[in-house]
């Protein structure tokens, strides 16, 4: 289960403002449903991952973009992304 405090903490970390009054009850229901995983009996199961050999990766080389990609941003100055003040 998830407590209201935990939900608010996660939302803050994810920079999401909570203004939907139903969000807690809805997420609580969803997480409550996930509790079914407890009865799956998979404690001893290994976790396997898809392996992709390094040879399958494309060559890491600079490819110049044929347009001024920066102009597609909403906020930029010269070649920099313009962001709000951090401090």
């Amino acid at each position: 289960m998830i407590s209201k405090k935990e939900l608010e903490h996660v939302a803050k970390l994810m920079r999401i403002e909570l203004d939907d009054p139903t969000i807690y009850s809805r997420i609580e229901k969803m997480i409550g449903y996930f509790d079914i995983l407890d009865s799956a009996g998979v404690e001893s199961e290994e976790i396997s991952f898809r392996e992709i050999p390094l040879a399958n990766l494309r060559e890491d080389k600079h490819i110049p973009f044929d347009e001024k990609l920066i102009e597609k941003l909403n906020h930029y100055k010269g070649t920099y992304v313009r962001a709000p003040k951090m401090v």
Partner: protein
Amino acid sequence: MNIKISALQFAREVKSGNISAEDFIAKTIEQIKNVDDKLHAFLSLNNDAIEQAKNIDKKIKSGKKVGQCLGMPISIKDNICIKDTKTTCASKMLEDFIAPYDATVITKLKQQDAIFIGKVNLDEFAMGLTTEFSAYGPSKNPWNTDYVPGGSSGGSAVSVSAFECVASLGSDTGGSVRNPASFCSTVGYKPTYGLISRYGLISYANSIEQIGPLTRTVEDAAFMLNLITGIDPYDNTTVDNHGEDYLKDIDSGIEGKKIGIIKEMIGDGIDPSVLSATKDAISKLEGLGATCEEISLDMVKYSVAAYYTITATEAGSNLARYDNLRYGYDFSVEGYEFNSYIEKARKKFGPEVTRRMILGGFVPSAGHAGKYFLKALKVKNKLTRQIDEAFKKFDLLVSPTVPILPFKIGEKIDDPIALFLVDINTVTANLTGKPAISIPYAISNGLPIGIQLIANSMDDKLLLQAAHALEKTVKLPEVPI
């Protein structure tokens, strides 16, 4: 001119000179104008479509080489990038986003002279199964406009079903191609993981999602696969299919094939008419020379919880990029502190996306990962082992695509668990990477029912052959629009 034809029929007619691409595109646009106010499949239209068709007709007349699509009108789910075209993901967050490049599937279809007639609706960022979570309003089921068309590729299914295009591309993360295909009576194909490049598909849950075609016939799905599959250096999860021709030998039939009936997918909660259609389909498969036998995959019971845990986690990570600095809408940075700016910008996400982001932050977090995320990965692993074991005995598996009939718009929107469970029969193929198809099979009370066939990884050709054999046994009424 009849626009109610398959993709292959279209190609034959244009090639033989019986119809021109321009006339067909003009008629298709007319159809969109006539029906889409009611159905809301499209989010944007290609204003250059007629001009593009004229150019293809010119190429044909002058004897120049023309691609296999010959000006075929194809709709594209609005989470697949077409260069210099709006790609909104049905989200206010991306309402003005113009894609700076083509997805690999788009590049491949452009090379074959396809015409992208427009971008179609979806649940915001593909998170949903009804299109009710689109920021631009839901699409409607052409069989009954009071009902949902399924999702998240609902706009794709509606546009094919209502003759607003001849084929569409959607994306399938937990059934998002097959579910709307079933609800709208079209074919929907989820390929083996890696068969189609995801480059240019806006990411939701990379480890399980795939682009897939929605078409009028199984042959058309095979035709589309021939055009868009294969290794892509821009997506290192793609697999080499050695140039497989999925149309060749599609008439091979299923004589002697062994088919497993997944017990957990025809159990509690199934609609009686869906069960009856499934039993009928099984009889037809037996009539075609296959042997059908029940099989239990007990991890299916946990598959939906595992699926939502894994996808929420990946979504939480993928959506972190939407901070309105690199992508987003026009909202000045002046006067804001960094965190409060991003918080405010993210208010453009709809409620379902917001919920899934928070879920995605919670389930893999310290103190909870063992209970949720890691357990979900273990279920995924065990389910994969169970299905691999099943394919040692069976060539194919069968189930209804969705255990219930399409439901009314708004009926389940406030019940997240009821919505989750609509996915129970489709998520297994995504979690295990197997190919699966939904074939239009029956109509009950005026609403469509689809049958799902699943094959082993890279057995896509066999899957299409079996689906084609089953499809040939079915004669369904025309959509009442």
